[in-house]
């Protein structure tokens, strides 16, 4: 790898690590403070006032010496005054530097001293002495959060973290855990205070961050988030409800801000399988002790030591897990796929639902009739399982029958198919190397297949596709079918002409004026139906195609990139020479 490639890779890693943006305000404040108080004065004076050398100085006339001295002293005095004046921090609000009030907070000034009356505030290094709910706070070093009003409870702590996101104040995970831990808050009348770092003197008494096991904060944070009714235990139903709500909010997040808010709100979710592992006594309630044992009970690993495997779920756990998964899936199926609303589902309805769900989430139906899935996946024909579960042979499944159908234990000799699509690792100039493969796999009794490692496909010198694959077989697991065979046929096509560019201008990244946030809207008429789609329009640089691949002989051109999610079956067939061809594929699931 060349130095340049190394740096490109490092830059990508940095961009990902700082994906949500990094707040440099603390570092900036630190630098400004250092400039205020640092040993810079001499250097500044020396660089600004260069006095004449001794020999030239003595050669000046006495009156000129006196005049120079007066001027020099005046300049020095002015500079000292300037240096002694601290930089004025730009104030977006009338609170002093180092103090910030959240939306809805109230404060006033008394004898030039800030008095905090109500709401949530943060105080940081550099804040002056303040009065909060009748208490004096001074010598603030580090960072603390104040709440003036009712004492914090679990519900307040759950709401608090998203407020930081709303105020654009970043919190580390550790700080979030500390804020969610009631034991971290000290209560003084109407003032509640949580020291996140350093110390503060409250009414003459020094309060400082107490060393505490991080795991205790983590446990407290989980409890505060997941014990929604605050009764000191997390029930199975409570955990499921929170997980479902988390999934719903995540799926409905429409933009970056909503996704960030989601992650701030649902950082602590106990997912069902984890719940069952934590629930050591199998009573479907998690106590703080059980959670602490799981979170805090893992001994520190030595360097190079692999973490131990999770303990296997027992049969009771598996039944619980399967029942919960079935219930979730059934609810979605009935809502979406039960066309005649009879509360039962036909095989075709079940297949269509799962396949369309895949497509909605970005999956594609490939021209050969299979579903694209470049990740690992197990594919099997559901007919046999459907017929076996259909007890009354009415070609429909009710909820109980569906439960039997959906929970499958593979038996010895069962054959599964592994679908995957990989881009061959053969360099950027060879662009026609992607392929889909189907791999039959025979299972042994009571086993589930996991793919542990799969290397990219490569073409050897003889033109054969090769790759390495490593499987891991583990004992007794149950799961629902993950994929289906499907065929697709073109039912309609729609052509649109995009503006011809050819200006030859070259842009790096997005062109100037590109609308990052909004799509333009247009209507595609396909099969007699109008589909409203969004698109962005930008210019493809010289000698590149729309994917950024280098291609010879192509000038810069304008293209439209259409966003087709939510319109299952519509595929971009071709984008070439200023013309885009769309095809609506009919999804015909193979029986």
């Amino acid at each position: 790898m060349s130095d340049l490639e190394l740096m490109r890779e490092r830059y990508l890693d940095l961009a990902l690590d700082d994906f949500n943006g990094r707040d440099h305000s603390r570092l900036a404040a630190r630098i400004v403070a250092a400039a205020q108080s640092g040993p810079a004065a001499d250097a500044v004076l020396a660089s600004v006032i260069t006095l004449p050398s001794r020999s030239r100085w003595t050669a000046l006339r006495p009156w000129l010496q006196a005049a120079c001295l007066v001027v020099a002293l005046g300049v020095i005095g002015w500079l000292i005054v300037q240096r002694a004046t601290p930089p004025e921090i730009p104030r977006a609000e009338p609170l002093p530097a180092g103090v910030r009030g959240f939306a809805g907070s109230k404060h006033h000034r008394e004898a030039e001293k800030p008095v905090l009356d109500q709401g949530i505030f943060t105080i940081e290094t550099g804040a002056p002495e303040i009065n909060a709910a009748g208490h004096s706070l001074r010598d603030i070093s580090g960072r603390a959060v104040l709440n003036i009003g009712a004492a914090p409870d679990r519900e307040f702590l759950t709401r608090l973290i998203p407020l930081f996101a709303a105020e654009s104040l970043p919190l580390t995970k550790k700080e979030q855990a500390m804020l969610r831990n009631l034991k971290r808050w000290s209560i003084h009348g109407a003032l509640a205070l949580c020291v996140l770092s350093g110390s503060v003197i409250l009414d003459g008494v020094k309060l400082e961050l107490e060393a505490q096991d991080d795991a205790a904060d983590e446990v407290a944070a989980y409890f505060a988030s997941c014990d929604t009714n605050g009764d000191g235990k997390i029930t199975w139903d409570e955990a499921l409800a929170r997980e479902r709500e988390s999934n719903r909010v995540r799926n409905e997040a429409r933009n970056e801000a909503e996704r960030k808010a989601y992650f701030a709100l649902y950082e602590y979710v106990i997912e069902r399988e984890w719940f069952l592992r934590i629930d050591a006594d199998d009573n479907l309630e998690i106590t703080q002790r059980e959670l602490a044992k799981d979170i805090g009970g893992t001994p520190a690993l030595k360097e190079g030591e692999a973490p131990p495997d999770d303990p296997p779920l027992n049969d009771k756990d598996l039944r619980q897990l399967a029942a919960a998964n079935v219930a979730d899936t059934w609810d979605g199926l009935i809502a979406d796929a039960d066309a005649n609303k009879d509360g039962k589902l036909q095989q075709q309805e079940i297949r269509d639902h799962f396949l369309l769900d895949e497509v909605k989430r970005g999956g594609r139906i490939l021209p050969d009739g299979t579903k694209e899935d470049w990740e690992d996946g197990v594919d099997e024909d559901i007919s046999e399982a459907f017929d076996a579960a259909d007890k009354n042979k009415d070609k429909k499944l009710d909820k109980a029958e569906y439960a039997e159908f959906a929970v499958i234990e593979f038996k010895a000799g069962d054959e599964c198919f592994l679908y995957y699509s990989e881009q061959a690792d053969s360099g950027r100039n060879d662009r026609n190397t992607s392929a889909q493969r189907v791999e039959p796999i025979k299972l042994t009794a009571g086993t589930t297949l996991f793919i542990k490692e799969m290397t990219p496909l490569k073409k050897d010198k003889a033109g054969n596709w090769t790759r390495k694959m490593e499987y891991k077989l583990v004992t007794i697991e149950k799961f629902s079918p993950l994929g289906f065979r499907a065929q697709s046929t073109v039912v309609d096509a729609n052509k649109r002409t995009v503006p011809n560019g050819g200006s030859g201008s070259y842009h790096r990244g997005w062109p100037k004026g590109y609308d990052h946030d909004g799509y333009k809207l247009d209507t595609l008429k396909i099969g007699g139906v109008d589909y409203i789609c969004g698109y962005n329009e930008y210019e493809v640089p010289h000698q590149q195609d729309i994917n950024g691949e280098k291609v010879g002989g192509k000038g810069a051109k304008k293209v439209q990139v259409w966003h087709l999610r939510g319109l299952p079956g519509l595929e971009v067939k071709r984008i070439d020479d200023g013309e885009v061809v769309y095809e609506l594929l009919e999804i015909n699931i193979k029986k």
Partner: protein
Amino acid sequence: MTTPAQEFEAIVRSHVGPLWRYLRLLGCDGARADDLAQESLLTLWRKNLLDMEPAATQAWLRKTARYLYLDTLRADQRRRETALADAADAVFSEYEGVDGGESYTAQLKACLERLAGRAREAMDLRYRAGQSNTEVAAKLDLTEDGLKTLLKRSKEALRQCLGGRFES
């Protein structure tokens, strides 16, 4: 009237982010990048170089930061790191020269949007939500090795998506 101290603070707020990223690109860890960014900006303050054009200020700060960074290394290390720093300068100018990295970030977001399935979920959890590999692996029911492979493949897809637009 703006005082020199106010001018300096404006310079700090505008330049500290890019300077910090540049130092990270050179190979500094977070704490070292903090320290060297501070030292570079304080040197600017001590030398009273507050009235340069923004582009000239950025160039001066990068040069100073690069010198300070190389100065902390042993002589044998310095030779290797000087070559890498040249590459870092080229990449940084390419990605951040015009718009402070805005185009790159926008493109990266667009490329992330094109990822699908578990690759997308893994990248979201790992980088948008800032969760550890252990946490992400647990959520996606993967081993840590499996997650590393998935992230590696996803990054490769991102690199391919980004590559055409940013490699000259």
